[in-house]
């Protein structure tokens, strides 16, 4: 038998999709840092985390990821894309690139992605739920209503987030996310 006629197949890396997800994670990570300095709800969520808290969100097994931590003042800090060598109490991984694409192209809300078993959560579930709330709010700030409604279960009512606060917050968060402060 000629074994060479039975070739090994190396799966591709889906490079373009991974680049797209990496860019989205970078924007969301920096936006969480910015939102924590702009929105009181996000700030409160981070104040409730323990000292030294950090979480990673990314794609299993090769990434990309984003890492966000809580600094000594209780604020969110974007810690880059590489979780290696960092102490991360909460690791949230989407199980594969295609599932991550569904989430980051807003074809599936975070809740539906959880319900469809697309996430692996390693860490305190209470913290994970707080992160989901933060992500939902950040998406409301970053995305136009039409798209954000696909990403969150219930778009905030005016009584919960006034249009003025939302639009001003959006400008500030985008500016801070771009400039990184």
């Amino acid at each position, binding site marked *: 038998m000629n074994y060479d006629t039975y070739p090994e197949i190396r799966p591709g890396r889906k490079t373009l999709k991974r680049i797209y997800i990496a860019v989205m994670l970078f924007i969301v990570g920096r936006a969480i840092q910015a939102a924590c300095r702009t929105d009181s709800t996000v700030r409160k969520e981070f104040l409730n985390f323990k000292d030294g808290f950090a979480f990673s969100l990314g794609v299993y097994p090769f990434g990309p990821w984003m890492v966000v931590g809580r600094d000594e003042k209780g604020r969110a800090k974007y810690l880059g894309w590489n979780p290696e060598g960092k102490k991360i109490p909460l690791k949230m991984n989407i199980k594969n690139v295609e599932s991550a694409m569904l989430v980051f192209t807003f074809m599936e809300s975070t809740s539906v992605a*959880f*319900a*469809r078993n697309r996430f692996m959560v*390693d860490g305190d579930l*209470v913290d994970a739920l*707080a992160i*989901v*709330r933060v992500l939902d709010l950040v998406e409301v700030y970053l995305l136009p209503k039409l798209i954000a409604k696909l990403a*969150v*279960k219930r778009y905030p009512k005016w009584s919960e987030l006034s249009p003025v606060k939302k639009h001003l917050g959006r400008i500030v968060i985008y500016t801070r996310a771009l400039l990184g402060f």
Partner: protein
Amino acid sequence: MFLPDYYEFCARVKTVAGHRALDRIPEMLTTLGASRPMIVTDKGVAGAGLIKLVNGAMKGSKAKVGALYDEVPPDSEYTIVNAAAKLYRAKKCDSIIAVGGGSVLDTAKGINILVSLGGSNILDYEGAGAVKRKLKPMIAIPTTSGTGSEVTLVAVIADHKKKVKMAFTSYFLLPDIALLDSRMTKTLPPFLTAPTAMDALTHACEAYYCLAKNPLSDATALAAIRLISANLLKVIKKPADLQGRLDLANGAILGGMAFSNSLVGLVHNLGHATGGACGVPHGVCMSLFLPYGLEYNMHKRAKEIGELLFPLAGPEVYAATPLKQRPEKTIEFIRKMNQDLHDATGGRHARFLKEIVDREGRQMVPKEKLPDIARTAQGDGTKVYNPEEINYDDALMVLEHAYEGTPLDRRKIKKG
């Protein structure tokens, strides 16, 4: 039939059900490669003579019970798991037979995590996905017809200091064998049969309308509802009805299969939080929150809630109820079930929060605790799977109605 774009369903627990199913234990242990099980149970189960039945079934076999741990409390916590895991190791056991209600079965799952994967603190494995490989052989023998834990991938274990209940989720938490024997639930008194069976009914109802519903969970949920609805009051009135007991046990396991795959929402969210904050038994919370879960999600799931009327009330009532009125009729039917159970148990089956009392007759859920419960519910994973968003204000609003026993004011429900 509802067909989502994508779903997952896993029900790989071998189920052995019958009036003398316990007799199969020795052979089942052999097929699992085990011979020295640790029995995990509670004082109530042992006191009712149920462990004697298990031991009796093992007579004449090669298997020996390595240890009997009967100190699981009604609302087990992680320290119990850690202590029992030490005993398992000290007695060189090789498998677990869990005999009891939800608290016992979930404790046994926690013990199995520690003795299989190593470590001394179960909290290290909290969350979804932390348990990544096969555990030691486990046989689950429920003594209530409610929890469904014998076929679920989740263990709920409390931290009493923090007053929270934590979920441990993994397909590896599915026991190897679920064993339903009608003798094991025969002695369960009516005031416990009622809320535990309502717990099973809640699993099935929530499974039918929550986010991960799918055709297979729908099929098991509808079968569960039919069995429970047809047998619950019958068994409450005649506790020794072995066929009714077996039917209820089958309803509970089907409900367990359904919710283990489609998960649960608001009813469990508030139930876990109320249990964690005030120590209210899980089944009691389920009974009284179930109508509120249906009402809260009505605007998103009217069709599904209407469909529940068929297995609940039977074909005649279903056919005689106009399509538009079926969702309301379903809720009305469940409220009536709670009322009937309240009457049949001499008032021991609570219908609303302020009615719940402990053994000394003290109110278990004071009104001032409601904000705490609403806050705790925000940290419970089941909120993710509810069709409608549940924020702190939403949870508090539902709790206030459930406290008084009044229906929800639908205008107050924020619609997403």
